[in-house]
């Protein structure tokens, strides 16, 4: 298997109500990625596109065909990947495998979403399509509800009093906003307090508005290349050294493992093994904090904390930029935003920025970061991981 490098990258402003179409959003970040790789559109051999709800948001299926044509990558193979909120990460993993296998030397990965075009009621309906449509959606199952069910289960399983868990969950959101406020690409650039979280609208007990990430419009792109090409044209490549992907069935069918998500543990184990590392080697992590409780559940399964103790780690500052394991220093999905098809690519973008020491000016640099981890969750059982090293 060949080594695979991340070269140039592009990242849009994450926002509400973007004035751009999905194709326009993607073309802008794609050309940023291509030109900063010292390449032109004609050099791209294939494109791997993450997009989930574009069919409904803009009535546009096969967006990949229009996107690559728009950006000047004429007639190339272009594929769209859909794994709900993990669509972008899955696209990265697929592109990685094609380059590693020697099918291509230079490929584009781009993700895009215009979720706010749907409006909150329809967006809530569409996000719920990533749950089981026949056996769980009839009960009114939504994603806030999914993580609310997990939050109560987490409190009961680890015997944590609910007010204590709520305090821990609030600490996750407070930290994300503290860092997101410093990230110019973030959608929600303001700080919040634990009190703000606990006074916000109750969405689905015990999840309140400030336990939730927003709906977001945005795009992100990266160029991946073989080692041979990377060494010729690019001075600061990062290397994807491990990938993982695993799936599971509907939430209730995961009863042997909940509140842990088995697919996450299988996927990250594969990624760690491929990279020849363990959780102790990770210097910085971007994980899927769609809801505050999701950060606790994720960080434990990634191997950073003992089960049932992650909330204390957030309260003690162990996840801060200078902590034991810096997590979501970009602001995470909570403050940076969550344009679902683009989210995984955005996570990769921010990890590479860390590994290239390019977050110093923003006051967000994890000193000496050499190894990063991307964790993305799609629906209630599509987990994807990337280990990235410099």
């Amino acid at each position, binding site marked *: 298997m060949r080594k695979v490098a991340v070269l140039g990258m592009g990242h849009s402003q994450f926002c509400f109500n973007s004035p751009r179409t999905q194709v326009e959003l993607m073309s802008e970040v794609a050309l940023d990625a291509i030109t900063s790789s010292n390449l032109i559109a004609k050099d791209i051999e294939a494109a791997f596109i993450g997009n989930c709800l574009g069919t409904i948001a803009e009535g546009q299926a096969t967006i990949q065909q229009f996107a690559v044509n728009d950006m000047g990558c004429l007639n190339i193979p272009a594929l769209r990947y859909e794994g709900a909120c993990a669509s972008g990460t899955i696209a990265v993993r697929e592109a990685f495998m094609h380059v590693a296998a020697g099918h291509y030397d230079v490929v584009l990965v781009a993700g895009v979403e215009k979720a706010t075009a749907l409006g909150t009621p329809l967006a809530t*309906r569409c996000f719920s399509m990533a749950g089981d449509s026949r056996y769980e959606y009839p*009960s009114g199952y939504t994603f806030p509800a999914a993580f609310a069910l997990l939050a109560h289960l987490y409190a009961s399983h680890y015997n944590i009093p609910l007010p204590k868990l709520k305090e821990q969950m609030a600490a996750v959101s407070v930290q994300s906003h503290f860092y997101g406020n410093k990230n110019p690409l973030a959608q929600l650039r303001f700080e919040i307090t634990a009190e703000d979280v606990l006074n916000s609208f109750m969405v689905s007990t015990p999840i309140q508005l400030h336990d939730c990430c927003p709906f977001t419009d945005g795009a992100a792109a990266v160029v991946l290349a073989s080692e041979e090409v990377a060494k010729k044209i690019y001075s600061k490549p990062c290397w994807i050294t491990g990938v993982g992907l695993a799936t599971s069935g509907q939430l209730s069918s995961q009863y042997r493992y909940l509140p842990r998500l088995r697919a996450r543990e299988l996927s990250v184990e594969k990624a760690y093994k491929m990279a020849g590392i363990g959780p102790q080697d990770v210097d910085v992590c971007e994980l899927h904090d769609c809801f505050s409780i999701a950060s606790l559940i994720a960080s434990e399964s990634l191997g950073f904390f003992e089960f049932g103790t992650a909330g204390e780690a957030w309260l003690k500052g162990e996840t801060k930029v200078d902590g034991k394991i810096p997590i979501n220093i970009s602001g995470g999905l909570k403050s940076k935003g969550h344009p679902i098809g683009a989210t995984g690519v955005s996570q990769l973008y921010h990890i590479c920025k860390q590994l290239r020491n390019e977050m110093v000016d923003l006051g967000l640099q994890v000193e000496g970061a050499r190894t990063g981890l991307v964790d993305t969750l799609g629906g209630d059982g599509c987990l994807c991981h990337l280990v990235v090293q410099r």
Partner: protein
Amino acid sequence: MDYKLPFKEYNRALRKSRLLGLRCNSCGAITCPPKMSCQECTGLDLEVTELSGKGSIVTYTTSFGAPQGRENELPYTIVIVQLDEGPWIMGNLIDMETDKITFDIIGRRVKMGSRVYPGDVYSAGASARPVFSFDDQI
């Protein structure tokens, strides 16, 4: 290979508040809601069996925000129930006012009935859903 308990049959029974599942002839486990294969051992030698619909609440949430078209149901409480036969299934808790529901409903015994979600433009028709009421004395 035929699907042993398709949605249509499961749903027809559920509308009458009868809960069907699948018993695995290889490992004895019960799968519910139905699948092609046993949820424990992936075995395919399954037979349809009627379940009690009784169990205990393992987790819950009361939602104050709804997907498009379901705003009139708000607020509503979703529960996951561990059935006496083993599997966990999702449904709604119906016989307690949502503002009285607290963490200590976890563990309470419940019994199953059903209601119908009429569906929307995305749902390919209606689906019955389990609804639960308490089956114990406080």
